[in-house]
């Protein structure tokens, strides 16, 4: 093991230890938010791989999560499999869909790929998740109900044992995050980044475009699916609405907003996406200083996402995390230079 690997695993374990304590003692709704934050965190993490590393645009990441959620729900409710099997099947379904979406992406990039993936998100939202032809997969109008499950001996359900689900999700999230950073440093990561910078140059240098583009889509869909497959478990049921086309657009928007090239931005984005709407609907109405009535509804969240995205793309092209990181690195560099009295470069 390289020293870098050890440091990364140590950081991940410390992060897990701290974050696992965070929602303890909060009420059930906030524990749900914490778990949901990780599910959307996986969604943005998948975008970091696909867009940040490999430079492929996608507006259908919530679709991958949704397919995995329905796959897991179907396995547990209709085939009476264990939840672990449900997660595996969900991830497999999402990965297969990822490869299918990756096929047209072999010939497309940029805005045309954005159009295709938006179309896919809309087809799944309006057709696959809602049409009666697919009732075997979606469980009909009511969706699948999942009351409780056993994950490797850990009892998990959507009411009393939400924290267990959160802990499992968090452990997986930390693990996948470390693997993502390792991927970034590896040979495969360098090839993906070469594709991002220039497909022509990458293929001239001997990068197999077909293999690595499909690999990026498959891994990305698998990561989004890993988060999504936990959704029925923490919500108790699965319905089309959480995975509709606007969630995909929000994932893309928040991913870019937070900094789509950086793994920690995914955690930040997931937290933002899960907690802010709930806080708004809970505390967004009342009276300020006994005089001004205010009523900030859920809709303000998406307005904020849109406006912040526009401002960020004009002012901070590298995203919130990217900008913070650059400032920190700059400050550290300045602090290191000072004692040596070097002229600033």
């Amino acid at each position, binding site marked *: 093991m390289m020293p870098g690997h050890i440091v990364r695993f140590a950081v991940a374990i410390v992060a897990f230890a701290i974050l696992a304590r965070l929602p303890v003692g909060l009420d059930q709704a906030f524990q749900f938010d914490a778990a949901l934050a990780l599910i959307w965190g996986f969604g943005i993490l998948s975008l970091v791989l696909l867009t940040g590393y490999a430079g492929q*645009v996608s*507006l259908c990441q919530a679709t991958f999560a949704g397919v995995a959620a329905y796959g897991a729900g179907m396995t547990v409710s209709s085939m009476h499999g264990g939840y672990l099997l449900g997660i595996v099947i969900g991830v497999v379904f999402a990965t297969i869909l990822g490869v299918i979406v990756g096929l*047209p992406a072999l*010939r*497309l*990039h*940029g*805005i*045309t790929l*954005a*159009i*295709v993936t*938006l*179309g*896919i998100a*809309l*087809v799944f939202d*309006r*057709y*696959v998740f*809602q*049409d009666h*032809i697919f009732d075997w997969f979606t469980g009909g109008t009511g969706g699948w109900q999942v009351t409780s499950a056993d994950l490797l001996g850990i009892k998990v359900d959507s009411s009393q044992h939400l924290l267990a689900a959160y802990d499992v999700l968090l452990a997986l999230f930390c693990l996948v995050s470390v693997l993502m950073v390792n991927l970034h440093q590896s040979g495969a990561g360098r090839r993906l980044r070469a594709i991002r910078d220039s497909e022509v140059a990458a293929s001239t240098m001997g990068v197999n475009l077909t293999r690595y583009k499909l690999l990026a889509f498959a891994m990305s869909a698998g990561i989004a699916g890993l988060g999504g497959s936990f959704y029925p478990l923490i919500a108790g049921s699965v319905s089309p609405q959480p995975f509709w*086309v*606007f969630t995909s*657009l*929000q994932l*893309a*928007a928040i991913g*870019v907003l937070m900094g789509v090239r950086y793994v920690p931005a995914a955690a930040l984005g997931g937290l933002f996406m899960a907690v802010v709407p709930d806080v708004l609907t809970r505390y967004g109405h009342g009276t300020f200083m006994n005089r001004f009535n205010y009523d900030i*509804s859920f*809709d*303000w*969240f*998406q*307005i904020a*996402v*849109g*406006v*912040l*995205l*526009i401002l960020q*793309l*004009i002012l901070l*092209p590298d995203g919130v995390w990217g900008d913070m990181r650059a400032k920190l690195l700059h400050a550290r560099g300045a602090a290191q230079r000072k004692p040596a009295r070097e002229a600033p470069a």
Partner: protein
Amino acid sequence: MSTFLAYTIIGLSLGGIFALAALGIVLIYRVTGVLNFAHGAMGMFSTFVAWQIFYGWPHPGLAPWAVTAEAITVGLLFAMVLGLVLEFAVFRWVRNRPQIVKAVITIGVLLTLQSTASLIWKNNQYHLPIYIAPQDWTRQVAGVPIGANYVVIVAVALGLAFGLAAFLRYTAFGRAMRAVSDNPTSASLWGVRVDTVGAVSWMLGSLIAAVAGILITPFINFDTTSLTLLIVDSLAAALIGGLVSLPLTVLGGFMLGLLETYPTIWIQSLGFPRLIALLVILAVLIVRSPRGLPGVAK
């Protein structure tokens, strides 16, 4: 046979809407290089402004046709202002950024407009459509009644398409717009005001989107999301025209309208037409050229 004819009429009017919406997308894309994912949302917002005037405001002593005219006028004026505001507040600042960055910004615009509208007009509420033409007017053609609204849509779509083509071809400003769409730098060297041309194309594009939005209200489940998501069908029509050609775009719009309507004779499904739109998008993108579209820079 009469079923077929009836569906043809529905398909043509739906196609007229797609053609209109796609025209606006192509216009903005060619002149400013922005692929506008918020086009449906812009049309939706202006349509709801017109709807608010039509149903929400008191109209003492006005004839019904005058109320319609007032609502449409205010809606279209609002659309032009919206286009201008977006150009000045957002897109002027990102003129030289990569195409995909500009496209992602339009997603921000889409999300903002969509949730502002759902904040004001509520998302799940049933909205009455705006009728342009009298509801009771029908003509029998080969045993099939044709409502006035269908005729109006097809006429407006074709009229606007030809009008826009004539404007681009025969007026000085239209020539300036074509010059900017070919090459902004050389156009500015020839004294064309690129900023003005960009602002006008945003205004015109937004106006056309609003026309499409107002015309479609009698035919769809009229709420904030369905109009916003019309963007996928409009993009499909625009892609048939290669994002550059106006005549092919209009043709593509009508074709897509028919393609989406005929299967509903056998398949009763709200979502199935979206699948057809996606298949059309894929077919166009994969058949047209190995590296995507000719007009699409990387």
